[in-house]
């Protein structure tokens, strides 16, 4: 397929449709409006459901209902809206339902602003909603990756019966880059897909079917039973941690004097700085977690080469992923952090200056 110049918000929507998503429930919010608008235009053309919900809370609960029926379903929002969805996300995780949630992050806290930020890292990777649960969290750094993650997210959601969040930001949502889409699933393939969930999902009792009674539920009133349920969830999460680590190594070598760790939009800017430093003969490598949960702790530890004097974390927040990097580095070398907040995005020149000071 030829490349198309597209905004991230639209590319992820198109990719979701191609991946068999025929149900989308959401509420408008900047800077993800192009996503909901794209779905409004395109869903009717594929006989899919587009529904603009009365609230973020309702949208995520519609997702809960549709996911309970074993169908591929998605919602999207931006930071303040994702906060509102957290109740439903906890229920979806508790009831072990497959669903995809896109967060096009903006500046916070509160209403914040509408510019790109990465302030929802804790919320996405450490909980956000109540109770013991985990989301699989994927963090794209380009429009192409944003689109590719849609189909991966649905596959992972189905595989683990777990909600998956794509944690993008206003820059990735608003930016246009060339994107190449995978072949769309056929109607027959999409029809077949929910059958993998026949053993638990809400569905009619077909003729000849043994009568079933499936419950979509996160309530276990007996503490002993709930304990077992949560322990089972954590067995599943351990499996995910084993299988789904994903990261990019950029210019990582034994020559590195500094190792950077950055994710999403921030990593793009760090890359530019690394390229500039390379011209000056200064060797800097970077680990970019592609999935931010599960987290590539070992990859970071292994990337600390013999000449690395410092691990430098750059984020568009006050140092949220920093905690995970410190766990990974485990005191081997000093870990430094620099970030910008409030929707202010650092420039390659600023990062270069910070890194130069390490030499």
């Amino acid at each position, binding site marked *: 397929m030829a490349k198309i*110049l597209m905004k991230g918000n639209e590319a992820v929507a198109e990719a979701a449709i191609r991946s068999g998503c025929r149900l989308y429930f959401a509420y408008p919010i*900047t800077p993800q409006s192009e996503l909901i608008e794209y779905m409004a235009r395109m869903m009717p053309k594929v006989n899919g459901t587009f529904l603009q919900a009365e609230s973020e809370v309702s949208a995520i609960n519609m997702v809960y209902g549709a996911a309970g029926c074993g169908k591929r379903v998605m919602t999207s929002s931006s930071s303040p809206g994702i906060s509102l969805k957290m109740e439903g996300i906890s229920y979806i995780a508790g009831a072990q339902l497959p669903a995809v949630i896109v967060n096009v992050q903006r500046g916070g806290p509160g209403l914040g602003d*509408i510019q790109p930020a990465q302030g929802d890292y804790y919320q996405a990777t450490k909980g956000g909603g109540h109770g013991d649960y985990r989301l699989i969290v994927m963090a794209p750094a380009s429009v192409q990756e944003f689109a590719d993650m849609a189909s991966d997210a649905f596959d992972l959601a189905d595989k683990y019966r777990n909600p998956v969040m794509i944690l993008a930001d206003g820059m990735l949502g*608003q*930016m*246009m880059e060339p994107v190449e889409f995978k072949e769309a699933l056929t109607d027959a393939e999409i029809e077949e897909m929910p059958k993998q969930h026949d053993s638990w999902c809400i569905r009619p009792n077909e003729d000849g079917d043994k009568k079933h009674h499936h419950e979509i539920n996160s309530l276990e009133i007996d503490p002993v039973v709930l304990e077992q349920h949560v322990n089972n969830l954590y067995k599943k999460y351990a499996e995910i941690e084993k299988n789904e680590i994903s990261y990019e190594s950029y210019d990582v070598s034994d020559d590195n004097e500094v190792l950077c760790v950055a994710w999403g939009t921030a990593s*793009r800017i760090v890359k530019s700085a690394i390229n500039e430093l390379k011209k000056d003969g200064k060797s800097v490598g970077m680990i970019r977690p592609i999935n931010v949960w599960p987290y590539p702790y070992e990859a970071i530890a292994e990337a600390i080469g013999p000449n690395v004097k410092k691990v430098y974390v750059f984020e568009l927040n006050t140092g949220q992923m920093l905690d995970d990097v410190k766990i990974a580095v485990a005191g081997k070398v000093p870990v430094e952090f620099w970030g910008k907040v409030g929707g202010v*995005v650092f420039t*390659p020149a600023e990062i270069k200056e910070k890194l130069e000071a390490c030499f």
Partner: protein
Amino acid sequence: MTTELICAGFGGQGVLTIGKFIAKAGMSEGKNVSWLPSYGPEMRGGTANVSTVVSEEPIASPIVSFPDVLVALNQPSIDKFAPSIRPGGILIYNTNMCPHGCKRDDIIKIASPMSDIALEIGNTMVLNMLAIGIIIGKTDLIRYETMEEDLTSFMKAKNPELLELNLKAIKRGIEIGKG
């Protein structure tokens, strides 16, 4: 080879479109491109700008801090972005809307009454095509043929008159760009 471009002006002047056409043409010519707009509540009449990068290499940061080319359709855009143009870079600006111009002498300045020329061609809407023409005339960022092909493919059936005006504006821009 990487070229970083900022287009800036009032919302509604079509600055975002300039960047979009450049990015699309660059993509058609097999280059890596990115297009990153400013966004916000100023849908009309506020200031708008877009960073466009066209490169032979994969694009790291889509954020342009030091543009090789700045297209400024109004004075606030010059005031804001011209100081960061790379030395030897290009400033294309609209003298109708930029009464104070730019005082830098280490850059190439292409000043023309773009609003007047657009009106003369027949429609103020072609102002952005004029800018694209100037870019084509002055740099080898993209080719005229790519633009013609792209515009023709989506405008010929819908609005052939406007297509003609657009192509005319690009050609006129090329002349200005070549000086």
